[in-house]
């Protein structure tokens, strides 16, 4: 049973108003919530701020942030992923699982489905572009031509996908998808962390992921690579589309500005937050390195191995969001995809 966006928005706003009233009256802040203990179903719970413990205060802050993000998503008609919520404030949530649980509990507390909050599980993913998906029951989803993506239906419910007019596909992270769209270039954008590189390893080196009519090399790795983090200047130089005529192109100041030059991650001028590799990240990276060595001299294996080694040396990782801090991910993608389509 779907609840209309307007209804959900007004429910969220009434919670926020109640909090504001408490602030105005100098009272302790409360949110009526449910906790979902395994097996025992949902039990009502009031979360207070500042509350009795730091744990409760933190929980309050987490719920409030999710409420605000869900509200904004509903009002603007966009779809949020749980992962996106996590990245809004990694320090606050600490673990992705915290977000997942709170979102589900929040949906219960508001008596709506999670989808009604415009929050989807990251694994489902959304698509955007001139793509139509015909389901088993003959309904057609898409094309998604607006700014808002459409949630991908479950793989089992898809009958056919029409992709005649598609010239390229961009996959942004996060999980592996199965394809059967021969002859269409597919670009993959993944995080600069061991899991992100592992996705590339699966796409490029493990043929079982892609159907047999599909050659793995057709999947191209767009980024993020260490050079994207380290060599912002030379990345900008590559903006000049290579052609024999403009080898002597003068400094193109306008494109430089419009792309919002970003400093190298290793520069002392870099003010972006940097995440350090955890012990788990290092172990995962070494595990992937081992598998890559077994893949032999495949150029992709060599490239991925080098990226993992450099990542371990630098001791840092970067989410796709890192590239977007300056709000220029779209232009970065335009440039990269353009270069790859022209160059190769």
């Amino acid at each position, binding site marked *: 049973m779907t609840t209309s966006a307007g209804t959900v928005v007004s429910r969220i706003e009434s919670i926020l108003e109640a909090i504001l009233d408490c602030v105005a009256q100098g009272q302790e802040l409360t949110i009526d919530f449910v906790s979902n203990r395994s097996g025992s179903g949902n039990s009502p719970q009031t979360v207070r701020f500042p509350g009795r413990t730091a744990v409760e205060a933190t929980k309050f802050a987490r719920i409030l942030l999710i409420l605000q993000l869900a509200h904004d998503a509903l009002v603007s008609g966009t779809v949020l992923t749980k992962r996106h919520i996590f990245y809004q404030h990694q320090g606050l949530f600490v673990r992705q699982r915290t977000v997942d649980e709170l979102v589900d509990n929040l949906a219960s507390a508001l008596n709506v489905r999670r989808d009604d909050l415009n929050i989807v599980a990251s694994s489902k993913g959304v698509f955007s572009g001139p793509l139509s998906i015909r389901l088993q029951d003959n309904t057609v989803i898409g094309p998604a031509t607006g700014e808002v993506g459409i949630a991908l239906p479950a793989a089992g419910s898809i009958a056919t996908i029409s992709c005649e007019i598609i010239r390229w596909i961009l996959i942004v992270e996060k999980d592996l998808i199965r394809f059967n769209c021969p002859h269409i270039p597919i670009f993959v954008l993944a995080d600069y962390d061991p899991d992100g590189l592992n996705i590339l390893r699966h796409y490029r080196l493990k043929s079982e992921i892609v159907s047999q009519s599909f050659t793995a090399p057709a999947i191209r790795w767009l980024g993020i690579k260490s050079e994207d983090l380290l060599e912002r200047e030379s990345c900008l130089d590559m903006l000049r589309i290579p052609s024999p005529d403009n080898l002597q192109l003068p400094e193109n100041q306008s494109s430089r500005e419009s792309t919002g030059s970003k400093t190298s991650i*290793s520069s002392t001028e870099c003010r972006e937050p940097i995440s350090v590799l955890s012990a788990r990240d*290092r172990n995962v990276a*070494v595990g992937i390195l081992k598998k890559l060595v077994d893949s032999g001299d495949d150029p992709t294996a060599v490239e991925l191995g080098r990226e993992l*080694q*450099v990542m*371990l040396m630098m*001791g840092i990782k970067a989410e796709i969001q890192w590239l977007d801090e300056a709000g220029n991910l779209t232009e970065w993608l335009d440039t990269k995809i353009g270069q790859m389509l022209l160059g190769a």
Partner: protein
Amino acid sequence: MSKQYLTTHTVDDAHITDIFSLAATPRTLLSASGSSTLHVHDTTDPSFPLRQSIPDAHKLGCHHVCTSRNGLYAASAGFGGEVKIWELNKETGDWSSGGEITGPTVKPGEVWAIALSEDGGYLASTTNDGRINVWDVADQSKAKIREYETGSAGSGSFGMCVDLSRDGKFTASGHQNGSVYVFNNDTGRILYSLSGLAKPVRAVAISPAGTRVAAAGDAGIIAIYDTKHGEHVGNLTGHSSWITSLDWSDTGEYLLSGSMDGKVKVWSIERSVCVATHSETDKALWAVRWLPKTGRSEMFCTAGANRSISFYREATGS
């Protein structure tokens, strides 16, 4: 007064992938890279030819290599977590395996940075939970003889770099959370916990006389501490990128530093100023090393992401 250095030679594509570490002996330079092979370059010949190649040293690549001051021993640490000891045959001048450090505490994450004592008898290594281990590598069993904790057990900050003093008295370590520790090897205790850098410390080096500790990393600053009282005695500023490598000259007069933007700098310790800056590349430098003084002039070398090793010589004769 600035000093003049000239690029005397560059060994292009010294490895097939990024060079992560260099270590010098009186006559050779050892280089380690993302490939499985270690290389030994002859530094007595002006063209720095490859003297020996040690294949299959580290299957997943090698991130650190170090030598003992006496030039007879080397150690290398690989991405797979393995640590190997190498011995110089004085007759032939060839390096051969001197065994491997084994046991439950040698696995990925248990060994990152390494340093050998002057005589090659002891090896210090850092771990991903901030511990510093010291191994008796001269002994056949290569047993662990010390384990320094930094922070509560198992929760210290990743140990990015380590150094041993020439007299064997001190161990110094630099960590991802910006802390620097100096340990007294005689008592087996922490001597100083040095603060001030706040960002990851990628390089730490004890001066030849054992009186100073230099530490540097993502702050782009080289902090100098004295080992007598643990006092912060000065900063060397001028790098604009992460500092990845430090090395004291043999006399302790100069400090060499390399950074992620490809720049190598020579600093006068007495005057606290940068006396020379060079860059052959804008790609990351992972290692900068002085060569032990054999001829008339000082020499140093750099290596990193561009896979080449550049040798510099002090310009003399003015």
